[in-house]
């Protein structure tokens, strides 16, 4: 018994001591202004460590801490619950941003001078992410990614295949490739989110970029806007491996890297995973030719990383200083050297080679955001698309589109109410 008691008390002491130690760690006696930045891309940690070091070496009065945690969105949400806000967050331009903004968490930074250096196309994308049009600037796009079709450049050159400009050319190309005994496309539909890659790439060309907002305002329906997208994504199944629902994202990346397919409809973000399997692979990309008129095609590109200032941040000046540093050309280049991305700032940056096929679209600003950045994640549109693709009945498309409309109302009830109230107000 004495032994147990001893054990118990010694453990309690250890526990207490360590909690003291933990709380003691935070007291650092400096008079510098602390700025904390949390960004959600742990894969870019190397770049951000460099940036952090560079900033702190050149600034005596401000100390910048950049966190690149895993599962950053969960961590951010739990920190918000705790009301433990960082000064700046680096997040994606997606529905999470819309929700945070709607919850009134970000500061208006329209007086930051760097805003005017950002490409207008990306600023427009940011505007469309606002549920309700809000005056002011709340997000500063940093880098973007693009989605379309990745192709095996060597394979294309050997066979003399040409980059298709229209939907008809694309299906013809698929036929040609298949006739030569190669699998034209490969999908990893077991991971439902990959269903969204071709979906988005098709939808940007076939429906207006503000489709979701229009639906919320009661001006149109998805049955109308998405019919062509739905039909075309189903056509793609004719050219992919049998039973694509058995293979995941990773399988598809590996298969493409091993030359088992000529093309892979996915975003530029997949390139590192593909190259990890086959480092010497020659990958290029082209814009998804969704239309029969090349002029109607649009590149699917969205903000991969943007910075927002938290409303609660007390040191606006210091935060702006950090932003200024982040948006210097040299700093952006540090990031681009590590990650294959498209910078959102105007300027002369070197684009990664696998985006060569998309270059002209990027330069002309002919792009539109991923449609799924407007879908509430709990609606699981990706799973709905997978269900639709697996449905072989003749009225599958109608059922799917009707379901899309019905569920949209169900999952966005409060938002639709809000939007329609706003519209009414605006009319008055």
């Amino acid at each position, binding site marked *: 018994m004495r032994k147990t008691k001893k054990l118990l008390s010694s453990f309690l002491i250890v526990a207490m001591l360590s909690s003291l130690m933990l709380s003691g760690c935070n007291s650092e006696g400096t008079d510098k202004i602390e700025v904390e930045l949390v960004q959600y891309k742990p894969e870019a940690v190397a770049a951000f460590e460099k940036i952090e070091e560079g900033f702190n070496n050149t600034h005596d009065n401000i100390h910048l801490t950049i966190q690149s945690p895993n599962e950053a969105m969960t961590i951010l949400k739990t920190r*918000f619950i705790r009301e433990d806000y960082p000064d700046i967050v680096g997040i994606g331009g997606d529905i999470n941003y819309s*929700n945070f903004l709607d919850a009134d968490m970000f500061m208006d930074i329209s007086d930051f001078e760097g805003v005017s250096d950002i490409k207008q196309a990306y600023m427009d994308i940011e505007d469309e992410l606002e549920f309700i049009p809000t005056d002011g600037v709340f997000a500063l796009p940093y880098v973007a990614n693009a989605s379309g079709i990745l192709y095996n450049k060597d394979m294309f050159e050997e066979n003399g295949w040409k980059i298709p400009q229209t939907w008809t050319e694309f299906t013809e190309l698929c036929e040609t490739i298949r006739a030569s005994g190669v699998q034209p496309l490969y999908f990893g539909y*077991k991971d439902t989110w990959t269903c969204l890659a071709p979906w988005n790439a098709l939808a940007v060309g076939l429906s207006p970029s503000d489709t979701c907002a229009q639906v919320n305002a009661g001006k149109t329906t998805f049955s109308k806007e998405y019919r062509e997208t739905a039909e075309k994504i189903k056509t793609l199944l004719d050219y992919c491996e049998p039973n694509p629902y058995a293979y995941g994202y990773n399988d598809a990346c590996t298969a493409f890297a091993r030359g088992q397919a000529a093309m892979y409809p996915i975003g530029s973000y997949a390139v590192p995973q593909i190259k990890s399997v086959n480092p010497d692979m020659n990958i290029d990309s082209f814009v998804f030719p969704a239309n029969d008129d090349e002029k109607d095609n649009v590149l699917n590109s969205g903000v991969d990383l943007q910075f927002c200032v938290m409303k609660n941040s007390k040191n606006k000046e210091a935060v702006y200083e950090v932003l200024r540093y982040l948006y210097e050309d040299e700093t952006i280049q540090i990031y681009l050297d590590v990650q294959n991305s498209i910078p959102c700032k105007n300027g002369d940056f070197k684009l990664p080679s696998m985006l060569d096929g998309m270059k002209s679209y990027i330069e002309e600003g002919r792009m539109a955001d991923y449609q799924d950045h407007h879908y509430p994640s*709990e609606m699981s549109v990706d*799973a709905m698309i997978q269900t639709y693709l*697996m449905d072989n009945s003749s009225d599958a498309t109608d059922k799917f589109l009707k379901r899309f409309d019905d569920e949209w109302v169900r999952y966005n009830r409060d938002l639709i109410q809000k939007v329609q109230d706003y519209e009414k107000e605006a009319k008055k």
Partner: protein
Amino acid sequence: MKSGRRLSSKSRTYLGMLIPVVILFFAFNTLPLIIGAFYSFTNYRGYGSWDFVGLRNYFDLFTDSRVWNSYLFTFKYAIVGTILVNVISLLMGLALNSKIRFKSTLRGIYFVPNILGGLIVGYIFSFIFTYIIPAVGETFNIEWIQNSILADERFAWIGVLIVGVWQAVAMNTIIYISGLQTIPEDVYEASRIDGAGKFLTFRKITLPLLMPFISINLVLSTKNMLMVFDQIMSLTKGGPAQSTESISYLIYRNGMDGGQFGFQSANAVIFFILIVTISVIQMRMTGKKEEQL
């Protein structure tokens, strides 16, 4: 008089031992549960502002086909899973407790499935189901295994179940083994002297004495199977065609990752009440069996 006072001091000791534990439990289990249940009457997203919506979330639950499907899937999975896990782990417990060679090594090996992380389990079993089994099917011309079981919306749940059972057996086996240890050797000897056969000994001696542990294992495995989450996350993510969305998966994915915290809290409350009811019935039933001894 004297004995009465002694009893009350004994009771006081008991209470002194128990009350701090109950307080701790209340603070970190019941209190947050009450707060969570409170949010089930709101449209809270998990951050930002919220409004009261009355019973709307509860009404929505009953009309949401996705929620219904998740209950169907989960119960189908749990019933089959609980039976399989308990039969297999009881057999394993008996086998690993008998006179065999390499006992420690074997016990160690059979424990491994339970400690493999989700990433490993997901990758390895996806590979087995997607590539190895179909390859075997092609080599030996067995048609029904030539397609990945995880890609078929009718059978994907069986794929998840195989992995779920494979992982769960280890834990229940441990409990059965420790239960078997409480049965004194001389009981077996007495039975042997009486000339009882192996099966009769099992039925008349082992099984009744093991009843408390069967009861515990039933409750634990029912609970674990009803709350299936890890296997779904690592194997199917609810697919194909939303056929393997479990209740826990929906609650987590839409409540935490998505913005449905209020709605999924309502789901969690209903689910909680349902499992508690099931477990109480289970305990009553096995409890009666125990008392019959």
